[in-house]
């Protein structure tokens, strides 16, 4: 049982005048659907912030992005996928668990249009997650600050899936996918199939959580 003095210290003594006491709202979290990743990130991706997911081809970044999108649509969120490379396969997305009816698929014809589309979606509000799937995220002058402000204003999470992290300090979270192990089934005399990969995910940047923490996410073929 706290003492009266401790309680008064917590709630403020009579006559206390505090200027600028507006406390920042606690950062909401968008669960990724992967328990090990949510634990490492303090509950999930930060809402209203930019998160980056970077890695070389075939390191599992798209699969991980699909898993995050699937968790969001399962929670009832309306999400958007900005895809200037026209790389999304609806059948693969559905197999990954994404509710396609809740996914707005936008295919701009250039990277600059992709950033513009992401800004429009973030500004509209109501989209819990906006995935920006670009190889080289060149936002142009003032691009990252505008996106960060739009995300914060509408509490939408912008997940940038790219080969490299480019947002710098404007991203609240950076995940990097690196060395991975490819799993093949079968062997000599037996049918060989691609089973999946074990992707190594490193929390390269995080304002809340433990930067530098690494974990392995197993991704299986459908």
């Amino acid at each position, binding site marked *: 049982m706290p003492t009266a003095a401790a309680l008064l210290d917590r709630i403020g003594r009579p006559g206390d005048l505090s200027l600028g006491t507006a406390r920042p709202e606690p950062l909401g979290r968008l669960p990724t659907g992967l328990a090990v990743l949510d634990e490492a990130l303090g509950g999930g991706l930060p809402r209203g912030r930019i998160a980056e997911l970077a890695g*070389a*081809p*075939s390191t599992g*970044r*798209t*699969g*991980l992005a*699909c*898993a995050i999108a699937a968790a969001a*649509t*399962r929670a*009832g*969120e*309306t999400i958007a996928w900005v895809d200037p*490379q*026209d*790389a*999304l*396969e*609806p*059948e*693969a*997305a*559905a*197999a*990954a*668990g*994404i*509710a*396609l*009816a809740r*996914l*707005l*698929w*936008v*295919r*701009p*014809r250039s990277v600059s*249009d992709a950033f*513009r*589309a992401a800004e*429009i*979606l973030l500004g*509209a*509000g*109501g*989209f*819990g997650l906006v995935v920006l799937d670009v190889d080289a995220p060149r936002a142009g002058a003032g691009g990252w600050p505008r996106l960060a402000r739009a995300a914060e204003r509408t509490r939408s999470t912008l997940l940038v899936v790219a080969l490299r992290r480019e947002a710098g300090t404007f991203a609240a979270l950076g995940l990097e996918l690196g060395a991975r192990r*490819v799993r*093949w089934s079968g062997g000599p005399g037996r049918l*060989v*199939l*691609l089973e*999946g*990969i074990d992707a190594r995910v490193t929390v390269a940047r995080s304002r809340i959580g433990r930067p530098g923490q690494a974990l392995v996410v*197993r*991704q*299986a*073929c*459908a």
Partner: protein
Amino acid sequence: MPRIACLLVPDLPVAAACRADPDLAARPLALSEGGGPHAPIVAAAAAARARGVRAGHTVAQARAIAADLVVRPRDEAAERSAVRALVDVAASLASRIEAAADGAVFLDAAGAAHLVPSEAGLATALVARAARVGLAARAAVGGSMTVARLAALHGGEVVPAGTELGFLAPLPLARLAPPSEIAATLERWGIRRLGDLARLPVAEVATRLGPAGAALVRAARGEDERPLAPEALGGPLEEAIGLEHALDALEPLLFVLRGLVERAVARIGLEGIGVARLGLALGLDDRSRDERTVPLAAPTRDVKTLLTCLRVALEARPPRAAVERVALAAVPERVRAAQLGLFSPAGPSPERLATTLARLAALCGPERVGAPAVLDSHRPGAAAVAPFTLGAAPEPPPLTGCRLVVRALRPPRPVEVFADRGRPDFVRGEGLGGRVVGAAGPWRVVGEWWSDGAFARDYYDLELSDGGIYRCYRDDGRWFVDGVYD
């Protein structure tokens, strides 16, 4: 005995012109058939008639009579829109409706008994709803279309059953607008009132004046030539206007569109439904037409949202010439009331989503914005795009863990594959290449053999020394990569 209501607008051409351009309402307005000083005046507003302007005058004669006369060409598109607006008003209270060629609308008054307590209430409601769509109308109820029309022209009232002859008797013959020869003959006979005409034997009149004369006698008795013929209702609402001067700038065109959208929304609002899709047809001054469709994510009656979507569509693809005529078609659909969950995310509002989709379509192309759809095809990577709408939440798919998905390469990328003992050993192509360090396949995928898109491919999953895992296929001896596992 049927009970028919008639809803009409006196001076429909003038009323339609004032509905399209409210600034004309207080001015001495005359409508001409065509342009130029010799064009005949076909209709004149009350203020112009008070100055002595009449139908039949030429424009020059009319201007000589009234120096401040405002002359506009007759706008038949606006008149059609006004008549359809009257039909919508009638449809909001009855289901059996017929629109006459002169713009009068007849409805079966018996069908409205559950909505309004009396026939007088029905007439009042019709007039009030017509005012909401911008028309000063008159309404009356009688035992036939003829009686109801004459009562409406008389000022609007309810003619109780069994009193039709008494109501019609004192009315002048001119109310039936008889042909001039027949009118002259009846004048010589001393027939000046409908009551006098009604007492004449039909057969005798038919012998002397022909079928037109017989029809006049029956009309004087309040009889219709045929019963009410209801027309099919539903379909898009159309609002149209012909422009006095061709418009080649966006802002004035949007100003005109605002009026059309507001009138369309007022008509749609009569039935509590929203606009699901807009169709815009622009008549250009190079004699061509610009037709486009503006889809909406959810039915809405918000004028600002509809105008924003139209603006975005016009900014993305401006008309190639100045605009002379504008026709707007609003496809109606019931506004869906969505039950939000207490703990589920609200999602984007229908109005914001509509403008967002319009902006994205203008940026990327309308065919590149939508919800992904799985095609019923064996072709790997097959994709389609469906319209994105807000609707009932679908049943969430079961949890699948984290999947290794394929990033499609569209179009498939041709590569060179060097084989060793029949197995792929080295792959080289644009942006990828290396020795094969892991392989699965081949498996044959065949499909669409009945169409021009028939395919038969041998697929492989190949891990290369460059670190990539690729989905490759061989088609008729040629190799392609159409996906990257990621």
